[in-house]
């Protein structure tokens, strides 16, 4: 993570820490369930930060212009327990992200799932929505 994004995410973290109620209800506050969206693009990077991870992807629009979207997802520990790893996605990977658009119409969205070019489907938005075919959570060797 570059310093600037560290500072920005730090600012977000502090803001949310100061407003815990907002942090827990940010989906309804920020995203619109009536605006489902599916994006295809190139994975840029992922911020494994609390309270929510961020997936960044470059999406090329009809005019050939590249726009970077920020796709909010579950916090790192939840993703980890679902089988995600730091290197699950690599820069340049073609991915498809499905979820809900931000209420304010910005290039932000809430991520429900990510599909990779090699057919992996990774859930990122709701642990309860895991289908039976989802990969088993890794064994926690700490116990």
């Amino acid at each position, binding site marked *: *993570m570059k*310093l*600037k994004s*560290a*500072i*920005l995410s*730090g*600012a977000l973290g*502090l803001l949310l820490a100061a407003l815990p109620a907002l942090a827990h209800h940010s989906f309804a506050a920020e995203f619109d369930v009536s605006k489902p969206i599916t994006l295809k693009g190139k994975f840029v990077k992922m911020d*494994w930060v609390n309270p929510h991870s961020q997936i960044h992807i470059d999406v090329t629009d009809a005019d050939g212009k590249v726009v970077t979207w920020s796709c909010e997802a579950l916090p*790192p520990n939840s993703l*980890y327990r679902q089988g*995600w*790893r*730091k*290197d*699950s996605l690599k820069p340049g990977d073609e991915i498809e992200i499905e979820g809900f658009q931000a209420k304010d119409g910005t290039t932000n969205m809430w991520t429900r799932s990510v599909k990779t070019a090699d057919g992996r489907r990774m859930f990122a938005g709701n642990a309860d929505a895991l289908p039976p075919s989802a990969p088993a959570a890794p064994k926690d*060797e*700490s116990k």
Partner: protein
Amino acid sequence: MARAAYKVPRTPDGLPDLQGIWQVRDTTAAFDVQDHAGALGIPAGRSIVVQPPDGKIPYKPEALAKRQANFKNRDSADTLNRCYMPGVPRITYLDFPFQIFETPKYTLIAYEYIHNYRTIFTNGTKHLDGLDWWNGDSRGHWEGDTLVVDVTDFNDQTWFDASGDYHSDQLHVVERYTRTGPDTLQYEATIEDPDVFTQPWKIGIPLYRHTEPNFRVLEYECQAYSDEAAKGGQ
């Protein structure tokens, strides 16, 4: 020598007993682990780097330049000033007490500094992979009377001190905790990071046991003082 004659007591489980509340007395290491003159907000102090023998961190040339830039920007660039977790080994020589608890399966260290704790698994389990943490993932084992802790899975957001000494997410730390007397514990940490340093280096610093009656770890919450940095308003 008194040190050689000292027999480390055992816990009821038969482990070398490191339990107690410990803290550094050399409070300048947290400001700068190398030899340093006084500077704004930094008291002068001697290096705790014991390897290499010159007491200097063996930076790659480009990494040394980044360290100097970090030093200049330390108020805003040190994530500690925004109340993030301090990382390892920095948490050990922050000027705050911490308490060690031992069981056969793990040793737990509870730090007063912003309610950090580390569970050091000593049950033969392996590091997790594919994620990273501020304080890393700790797995330990006993070598004679010494607790040896292997720490990996770090992020690249923490420093070794308040002077910009830094690492990448390739950081690997091996700590050694050896009780040298009833009230002293020698702490050593070997640090390697091929992205930043030309060779592994090592620090050593004694810890002292709190013997005051009724001494205990208290609560210490952190409030960021570097407000401009916290708002991202550079």
